[in-house]
């Protein structure tokens, strides 16, 4: 494996394809991150991929998801882009509010923000760019 592994994939809107990406990323992250940090990245990537495929592309087989990652000396960067209509992250209701606590969905973004060091949305919400610092802190 190179010193600073990086990769880019274009996958169909298919959860099986997402799992293969997830497995590659997990293997790379595990070489450099402590177990709890690897868990954090895995959670964020899983939630972001599912969001891109289900909510962004609406499982449309004609639409793709682009995933790019890079393991750097101090952090792990990942960027996921879908071909959906985009969204405003501000419009997503707080899933921890008492009135939303029993809703079966809507927790992905909360988990992504919690587990990653920095999260940004670009291109009207079609791209999520995030990184995890490798220093034991959040």
């Amino acid at each position, binding site marked *: 494996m190179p010193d600073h592994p990086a990769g880019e994939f274009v996958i169909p809107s298919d959860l*099986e394809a997402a799992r293969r990406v997830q497995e590659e990323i997990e293997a790379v992250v595990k070489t450099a991150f402590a177990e709890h940090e690897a868990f954090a990245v895995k959670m964020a990537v*899983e*939630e972001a991929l599912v969001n891109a495929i289900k909510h962004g592309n609406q499982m449309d087989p004609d639409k793709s998801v682009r995933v790019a990652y890079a393991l750097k000396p101090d952090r792990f960067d990942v960027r996921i882009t879908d071909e959906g209509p985009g969204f405003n992250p501000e419009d997503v209701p707080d899933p921890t509010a008492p009135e939303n606590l029993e*809703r*079966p*969905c809507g*927790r*992905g973004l909360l*988990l992504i923000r919690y587990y990653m060091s920095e999260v940004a949305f670009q291109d009207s919400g079609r791209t999520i760019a995030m990184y995890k610092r490798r220093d034991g802190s959040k």
Partner: protein
Amino acid sequence: MSQQPRRRRLEVEDSGDVAVVNFVDKKILDEQNIQMIGDDLFRLVDELGRRKILLNFGNVEFLSSAALGKLITLNRKVQAVRGKLVLCNISKEIREVFEITKLDKLFTILPDEQSALQAF
């Protein structure tokens, strides 16, 4: 590959009138798996009439928010029949997922199977 063979995803044992459920999979992850795990869990209540359910997460290393959604629906079903759902043996990492989402307030979570069985 979009179809997975139908296989057992839960191991259910009885302890008195409590259905003790162990997950076969270490990662409750991909959508189809979650759907099937959800269906199997719901069947316990809807078809088999179980009212006391203990989920043992001892074997589970990872779960996503979609799996949390299934647990919430299961909890609702159990409450609707005036039953009780208890979760136990959850790893530190997964416990944190429940805390972040504040679902530790919604579910009864106990450290091990023995203490969980006493909660019914």
